[in-house]
């Protein structure tokens, strides 16, 4: 089975971010950049299918040169190949432009499954996956929490969390899947894996997409409004209940 996993490099979510004074974006100085953790789950899903069916796992990313570090994380986990698409237009591109660049590259690769994280933790947009499915002409299943591929590797049975329930969906291959955190537990890269990943060549190509002109653009980034701490009181149960009920009635007006 030929599996393509899309990868993005993002700021480590555990660390604070600094917004540039002019609000044009975030300050990357000293920022720890890592593989988007949903993409770790996507890579893990690909590796498990490879273990079950044989084949290859190819990682693909579009972004600046530094993105190679995130690709090496996936190689160290066990992926076979990695490709990076760079290009001067990518920084101005919006998510649809990014999906177009990825689609052009993936079309040239054999692919039974394309797997993406359900979102990336920088833009939180969750656009690229389904947009990529459309551009590749593939059926899709997004935010999957369970995945089984039948023995003949012709269909995937997935579970998707929907409001108030779980949707059980059958998707014929080739297909595009985006994955939820609860799908699996990503493996840690092994030491030999890390050594091998360091030596591995990452194929780099330059996107010549002339249509990356963005249909939407970020004009300002600000910290979220600071919430004022309200009243904090130490109270026994009766006083606490009286306070909460009064708050629900008078302030929140839900009682």
């Amino acid at each position, binding site marked *: 089975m030929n599996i393509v996993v899309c990868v993005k490099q993002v700021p480590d979510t555990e660390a604070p971010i600094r917004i540039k004074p002019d609000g044009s974006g975030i300050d990357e100085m000293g920022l720890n950049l890592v593989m988007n953790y949903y993409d770790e789950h996507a890579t893990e899903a690909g590796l498990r299918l490879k273990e079950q069916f044989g084949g290859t796992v190819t990682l693909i990313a579009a972004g600046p040169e530094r993105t190679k570090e995130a690709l090496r994380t996936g190689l160290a986990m066990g992926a076979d190949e990695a490709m990076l698409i760079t290009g001067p237009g990518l920084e101005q591109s919006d998510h649809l432009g990014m*999906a177009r660049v990825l689609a052009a590259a993936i079309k040239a690769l054999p692919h039974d499954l394309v797997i993406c994280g359900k979102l990336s933790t920088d833009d939180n947009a969750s656009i690229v996956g*389904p947009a990529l499915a459309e551009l590749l002409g593939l059926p899709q299943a997004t935010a999957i929490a369970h995945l089984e591929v039948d023995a003949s590797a012709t269909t995937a049975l997935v579970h998707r969390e929907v409001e108030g329930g779980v949707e059980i969906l059958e998707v014929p291959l080739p297909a595009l899947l985006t994955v939820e955190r609860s799908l699996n537990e990503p493996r840690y890269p092994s030491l030999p894996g890390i050594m091998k990943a360091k030596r591995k060549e990452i194929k780099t190509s330059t996107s010549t997409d002339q249509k990356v002109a963005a249909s939407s653009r970020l004009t300002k*980034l600000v910290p*979220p409004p600071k*919430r004022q701490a309200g009243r904090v*009181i130490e109270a026994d149960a009766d006083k606490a209940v009286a*306070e909460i009920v009064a708050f629900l009635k008078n302030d929140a007006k839900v009682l």
Partner: protein
Amino acid sequence: MANDVWVVVEHESGQPKKISLELLGRAGQLALALGGKAVAFVPGRDVSAVARALGPYGADIVYTAQDPLLEPYTADAQTQVVGEALRKEQPTLVLIGSTAQGRDYAPRLAARLGAAIVTDCASLEVDNSSLVATRPMYTRKAIGTVMYASEGIRIAVVLPAVYPVPQADPKRTAEVRAMRIPLDAKQIRTKVHEVQAIKRETVPLTEADVIVSGGRGLRGPENFALLDALAKALGAAVGSSRPPVDSGWVPHDYEIGQTGKTVSPQVYLACGISGAPQHLAGMSGSKHIVAINKDPNAPIFQLADLGIVGDLFEILPKLTEAVKKAKGGNRD
């Protein structure tokens, strides 16, 4: 028409969903600013009852697209039908709820039409004839302002509970027009085996005005019954921070935070939740926050409007009784 604002309506059991009514209210205001009409588009098997319900909430025109192949929902059928309708009518803006369905098909639809798309919109304004959205980014550590290009159809996937459900005007009616959009079973490649309802007596998290949420301080799965009882009395949903999910006390769909759901209810009642950044990423947009925690230094108190340092095992049962009494009192 070119200045119209559309809402793609989600519905269940012949009723429009709350998110769709919220969007319809906003669509009316934006249509006014843009000089167009508020249009509701209702795809489904039999949507006549849903279509009739939308005029009172502000729709000027309701388009229906009825086809048995539209239920159960699939991305293929939905993209085909909504896409063809948009190609034909070319509205300037389309509002779609940020729900399991909306997040699934809206980006696919945008790619098909080459339309601009912004997801997770927490506000949507017309500013000097430009359309501007704000949205949480970097796991809610920042709020981004995004400006749409002015050409063509624009799609906004809007978070639930950011706009109020408009007051229904029973005298108001909308013109209902049936649209015929060809849909072939062969175009639907995926097959829904079933949608297993998760049996729960409380409201779904994404539709709740009030959320009662529990953390490590609940000490065990059995104590979530305390939250269930309070939630039932309040008409609220039950959620959790990450530790109860990781410990297997509650299923993953309870989780609110960076790795779970983002919610913004009227009231968020955090019980035994310390307030780790990973949790705050999912709930700091709530209108009102009440926290109960035995640790006076818990970070959650830095953003709670009302913080109670106390024993939740004593407080919760009494609070449930008091809420029942208050609700019963209102009915008299």
